[in-house]
């Protein structure tokens, strides 16, 4: 489904200050030009393959499948990409686009630090200046990623406004963009924000579902019964879903961070607890109070700790094409530990949300059915925090 006037159903749009309007119009024009430019596409494909290590593997998790005793489980190994997550797909695309547009400086927000690391990586590769905004709380939760960004030459600015997490990092990156537009591209990390960002990010991430489709057809000769991915803003999920949207027999399941539970205030499950609103440039669902004040959200996962969801997901929910289910901190930590022991793969705590739901779903399905779980990132970054969650005194 393509956005019409920047809308997915009623969602999306361009709710941004006038100062930024010509910048997003210029970005849309440039993107519409380069997305059909064979030379740009070849350059991007070469970066995907030779630099990021694509295509990522589709791995049959035989032990996990046998243990759960139901549907066959395949893992899409986005964690094996360079920089350890799906974020690099979008960043290489946007950085290349920015470079073609004559921009010399990238700014970005980051939650867990994966998008910030990916942006710092692309900036180093392409010789661009890089500034990353990161909530102060997250710089403490993910100190190692802060070091990685600095190592590659990026400046990391801890954001202390608001709740000092991902949403505040987005706000601060937007403020910085209004301050310096001429030489700067805002490399937004998820399928959110004002049009055309949700479409651009979706397109660059859709390589995930393109590959899943080719790989599963080759291995199984048919499409999967369900594709499961975690959802914060929703970029790995929209990437994993996109090429299956027209294949109605494939269930698309997004797993939201329920934090301590959707019946508590300590949650980040937007579809399950939020309502329609306008924020960060888009109309979509947001966690908010009765007067439209954006709620402070919570999840053990810094990457899913966001009070909104991308507009294309909001529409997929409205039209009933995708399901969005809540997964708690405790459930995802159990899944994190389970995959580590069962398959020797340590997933990102974000991806563990998707895995947890797959563990519930698989036993209810028959052995000839297939589930694909998108392992959007690797979990090395989370080990110290999960150890602390389990009461061990480890710091990175």
């Amino acid at each position: 489904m393509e956005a019409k006037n920047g809308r997915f159903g009623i969602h999306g749009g361009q709710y941004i200050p006038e100062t930024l309007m010509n910048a997003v119009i210029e970005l849309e024009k440039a993107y519409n030009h380069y997305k059909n430019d064979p030379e740009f596409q070849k350059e991007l494909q070469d970066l995907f393959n030779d630099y990021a290590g694509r295509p990522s593997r589709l791995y049959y998790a035989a032990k996990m499948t046998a243990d759960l005793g139901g549907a066959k489980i395949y893992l899409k190994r986005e964690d094996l990409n360079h920089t350890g997550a799906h974020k690099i797909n979008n960043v290489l695309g946007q950085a290349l686009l920015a470079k073609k547009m004559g921009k010399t400086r990238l700014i970005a927000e980051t939650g867990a630090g994966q998008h910030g690391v990916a942006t710092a990586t692309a900036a180093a590769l392409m010789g661009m200046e890089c500034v990353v905004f990161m909530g102060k709380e997250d710089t403490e939760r993910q100190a190692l990623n802060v070091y990685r960004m600095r190592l590659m030459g990026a400046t990391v600015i801890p954001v202390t406004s608001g709740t000092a997490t991902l949403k505040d990092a987005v706000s601060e990156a937007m403020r910085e963009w209004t301050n310096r537009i001429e030489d700067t591209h805002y490399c937004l990390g998820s399928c959110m924000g004002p049009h055309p960002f949700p479409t651009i990010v979706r397109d660059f991430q859709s390589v995930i579902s393109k590959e899943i489709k080719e790989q599963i057809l080759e291995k199984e000769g048919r499409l999967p019964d369900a594709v499961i991915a975690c959802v914060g803003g929703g970029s790995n999920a929209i990437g994993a879903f996109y090429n299956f949207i027209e294949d109605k027999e494939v269930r698309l399941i997004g797993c939201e961070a329920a934090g301590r539970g959707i019946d508590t205030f300590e949650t980040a499950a937007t579809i399950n607890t939020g309502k329609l609103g306008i924020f960060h440039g888009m109309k979509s669902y947001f966690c908010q109070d009765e007067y439209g004040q954006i709620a402070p959200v919570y999840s053990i996962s810094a990457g899913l700790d966001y009070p909104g969801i991308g507009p294309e997901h909001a529409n997929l929910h409205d039209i009933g094409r995708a399901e969005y289910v809540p997964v708690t901190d405790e459930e995802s930590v159990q899944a994190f530990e389970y995959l580590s022991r069962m398959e020797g793969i340590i997933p990102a705590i974000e991806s563990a949300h998707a895995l947890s739901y797959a563990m519930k779903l698989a036993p209810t399905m028959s052995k000839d059915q297939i589930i694909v779980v998108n392992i959007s990132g690797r979990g090395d970054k989370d080990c110290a925090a999960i150890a602390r969650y389990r009461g061990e005194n480890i710091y990175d």
Partner: protein
Amino acid sequence: MTKLADAFKNGKAFVAFITCGDPTLENTAKIVREAVRAGADLIELGIPFSDPTAEGPVIQGANVRALAGGVTTDKIFDLVVDLRKDVKVPMLFMTYANVVFSYGIDRFCAKCAEVGINGMILPDVPFEEKEEFAPTCRKYDLDFVSLIAPTSADRIAKIAASAEGFVYCVSSLGVTGMRSNITTDIGAMVKLVREANPSIPCAIGFGISTPEQAAKMAKEADGVIVGSAIVNRVAEYGLDAAPVVYEYVKSMKDAIR
């Protein structure tokens, strides 16, 4: 019936922005009355928002203090009812799209008209999204104020042509806040507005804090808008800010007369 344009009928207008409920609504009421007594021609009342993406640190801080103090949209409507007992100058709201949208656009506009608000500024609603709000504003005789920025260029003509109340000319790139230097060619921006819409007043905001800046900007346009410099005084003097704001607004109004 009061209209925003009335503020521009007695020479150059001074527009005072005040965040409601910083730190209390009683304090806001006192400050508004003192600003009007000092010569403010138009009062811009900020309804706080949790994540004000167009604001610099000064107004962000005011939003945090006001929300921490428990202010809500409904309590601000009550404040306006009280102010309208004696405040005759036009007043408008400055807030973010979600505050209006979540209240219900029609319900919000109806309430504005009922309590005596004359318009609104939503900095995260550009020309492209204006039709979601502007027709309802018109229905209740409220002006939906449009902004133009130093980056607007070829967009100025279409924005100005359908502008209502006045055009808010953003003086500089970036967010709200005091600046020692404004380098944009404001005269050229205002000229483009006037070519497209000869009758619409232009007020300049963002970065203006001193009487010298105000005097210079007032030469280029029909009025000046000052926010952070006032809010900064409220931050510093708190419940004792009203007389300080009076002296400040008087010095600014005198400078643009």
